[in-house]
């Protein structure tokens, strides 16, 4: 069997790059937030220090095997999702495993991570974790609907479930789906706000209400794993949205610019918003974004 070396390099490098970019993005967000809050904030590498520190904790409490598996599930899910997203358009290194049905697969994969977390957190027995998990799952139900609707609209419009094909469609910036299907984009981006768990949709970790929710009982390397997976996962979501709506990126600089700008939407919203209550959050997604999503489908169907 012939080994595709470029794919191998990609497989190894993609998570590493995703992690580094995710971590640095995390640091940048903290820095930007700090500036809005009239202060300097931590160094941009702060999240890296945090993660290293968590890994180097000498003890880590463990409540059962599921708690151990939870973060592992999460990190597996995010890395797997990553593998199915073409990070750099047309690059032999970063195509990874994207195939024709990958959008559907991704939808499942992204939920899988959260479920793993939920199982892990559930085992800790901390009521805060339990409440956090139930909140997370209900909220997921909330934002998945407009997200799926947006994707469905796009799938119908372009008659494909492959990211690569979607990327191929967007060969010029006027052809970006954001311009071709603005309603789907609006629905998608609103769902994206929820997905990124920034305020007002940070009901899952809500410190003032349920300590920090699911990870309440996680310390040391488990929390480190969760932070790692979180960093990668943030990157996954960003790349996914860039690929779907913003025409992907054919080189790293474009990728960084696009993802960063996209990232700023939830971040800046988060800086100036309080948190919704869980049911308010779900209702929010079920009202406008869902309506827009349905509208997008209707428009597509009518146009099609």
């Amino acid at each position, binding site marked *: 069997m012939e080994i595709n070396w470029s794919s191998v390099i990609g497989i190894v490098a993609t998570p590493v790059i995703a992690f580094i970019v995710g971590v640095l993005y995390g640091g940048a967000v903290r820095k930007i937030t700090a500036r809005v809050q009239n202060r300097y904030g931590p160094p941009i590498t702060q999240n890296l220090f945090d993660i290293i520190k968590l890994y180097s904790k000498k003890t880590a409490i463990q409540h059962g095997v599921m708690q151990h598996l939870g973060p592992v599930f999460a990190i597996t899910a995010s890395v797997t999702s990553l593998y199915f997203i073409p990070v750099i358009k047309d690059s032999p290194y970063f195509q990874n495993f994207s195939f024709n049905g990958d959008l559907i697969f991704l939808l499942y994969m992204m939920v899988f991570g959260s479920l793993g977390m939920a199982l892990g957190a559930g085992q800790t027995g901390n009521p805060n974790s339990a409440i956090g998990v139930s909140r997370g799952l209900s909220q997921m139900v909330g934002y998945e609907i407009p997200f799926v609707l947006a994707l469905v609209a796009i799938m119908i419009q372009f008659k494909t479930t492959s990211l690569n094909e979607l990327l191929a469609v967007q060969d010029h910036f006027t052809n970006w789906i954001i311009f071709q299907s603005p309603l789907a984009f609006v629905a998608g981006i609103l769902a994206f706000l929820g997905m990124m768990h920034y305020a007002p949709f940070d009901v899952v970790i809500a*410190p*003032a209400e349920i300590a920090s929710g699911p990870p309440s009982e996680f310390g040391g390397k488990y929390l480190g794993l969760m932070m790692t997976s979180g960093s990668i996962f943030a990157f996954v979501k960003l790349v996914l949205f860039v690929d779907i709506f913003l025409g992907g990126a054919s080189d790293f600089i474009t990728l960084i610019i696009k993802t960063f700008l996209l990232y700023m939407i939830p971040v800046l919203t988060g800086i100036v*918003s309080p*948190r919704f209550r869980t049911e308010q959050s779900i209702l929010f997604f079920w009202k406008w974004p869902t309506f827009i999503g349905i509208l997008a489908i209707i428009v597509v169907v009518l146009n099609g």
Partner: protein
Amino acid sequence: MREKETTLYLGPQHPGITGNMMVKLKVAGDTVVKAETHVGYLHRAFEKLMEQRTWMQSFPIVCRICVPEPDPNEENLARAVEEIEGREVPERAKYIRVMALELSRLAAYMLWMGGQSGGLGLYTAPQWSVGDRDYILDLFEELTGGRIYHMYIWAGGVRRDLPDGFKERVLKTMDYFESRLPEYDKLIFDNAIFKKRTIGIGVIDKEKALEWGVVGPPLRGCGIKHDVRIDEPYEIYDKLEFEVPTVEGGDIYARAMVRRREMEQSISMIRQVLDKMPGGPVYNKVPNPLNWYVPKGDAYVKTESARGEFGYYAVSDGSLKPRRVHVRGPAYVHGVSLLERILVGANISDVSPIMNSLGVCPPEIER
């Protein structure tokens, strides 16, 4: 269908709790069925300690009763002794006291604003307001020598006169605060999500409020005009022009708006005080504190703090030390019986905002 009840302990170690106390919640789903407050984590036995100390020695410890806002405590103890002893306070000292009280009210509201919006997840607001509050602490440091614990107001007046150029610096800070208030409005009080989270939440019934002994902003948030500063004007409040804002509704937002408007009033009052302040001494010396025998008698004095009416009941038996000083903080009622009642039926996400809006301050519950 009745959901399974679980018990949720909010505190004492919990980011959502104000201070160091615990609320034991019986929760069905997301709704609180029963709330029970547990206090005592900050009990230092102030009242016992005051019985061990002379009147003057009590001043450094009373300001610790309420950490965010120490001045009303000093003011209360000072006025209680002065009433028992019949001691006059110089006019200028009264003005300075009112200035300190209003500055501390402003500082307490800034801290509350941070707590209230931080509890709701708006993390920018505490960063701003607590940072800005520091400018008031700077003023206090300059005036009293201490950032948090001032030990400035005491029997017979205040400890020191204003430092040089202090008036200008206060005015400058007030200008700064006034320029900042619209920005807070835009970020917090006009914020649609903030309104969504606060309007109609934690409602106190108007009739019940009177009977339960609610005081301060929570009462004024029910539309009842009750404020010690106008009911029983102490120091020079009768010489100042100010209004006591009331808002109908009785919910978190109404209480927030009361506080928001009072901040404007406080700024205006500080300006007036500085404007009208007469000259003269600031301290009517009490006898040597080692040999200060306060005559027999008792006094109940009240001060309007940022959280409501602060009452002190002091009894002297003619000796060096107080016989009894009973501290009745506003949070005593708010934090125990009122909280337990209005938490019932609330969503667990709202527990922390409700506590914040009532101004629950554990150190003054257990003292």
